């Protein structure tokens, strides 16, 4: 168990104060209004599920000749791919941040 830190080491004084960041503006589609990081993540994941299902439905319609126009199919698949890229990036960054924390020298 490391020894408690001597209070004289603490940085105080106005020149050391870091102002709190501006609260994040809600996203244009209302998705990001309030909620912590966990809520945001949960919303993105359910969004991802829905986009994958939409893309699967559009792909099935293309294969069975029931698609009405090509751009709707292509856009559904591309949206699903971008959502997966976003989820993948979030996961990678979260894992890296976690590893950074572990590597931090105390």
């Amino acid at each position: 168990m490391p020894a408690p830190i001597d209070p004289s080491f603490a940085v105080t004084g106005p020149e050391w104060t870091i102002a709190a960041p501006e609260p994040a503006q809600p996203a244009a589609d209302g998705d990001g209004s309030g909620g912590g990081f966990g809520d945001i993540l949960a919303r993105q994941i359910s969004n991802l599920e829905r986009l994958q299902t939409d893309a699967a439905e559009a792909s099935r319609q293309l294969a069975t000749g029931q698609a009405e126009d090509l751009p709707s199919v292509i856009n559904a698949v591309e949206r699903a791919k971008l959502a997966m890229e976003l989820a993948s990036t979030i996961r990678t960054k979260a894992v890296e941040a976690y590893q950074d924390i572990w590597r931090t020298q105390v």
Partner: protein
Amino acid sequence: MNLFDTTQLVLERAMSGATLRHSALAANLANANTPGYRPIDVDFHGVLRDALERGPAAVERAPLAPAVQSTAIMRADGNGVDVDVTAAEIAENGLELSAITKVAGARLDILRLAIGVR
């Protein structure tokens, strides 16, 4: 999303169906002047639509085969091929094959992202 779900299976069977349909339509074009020739086609759309309702095993086993079209308008010598429409159908089929291939590839890319492969 499961690994290689029913949607991916249906896309793959559609690719096979489109490839087979190209051969059938090319045969029609080659026989555009054969007396008494009845044009053939592969209705992979209809076959896969029915198979999808019955489940993935039915999709796997879906029969893709050329069949004689009975709706062809006949010329005096019994030949039922319309050259212009057949050429257009060949072009459409080729484009459809490209579209299905691209969509199937994109879904596999999504799978790769989910797995974590760069």
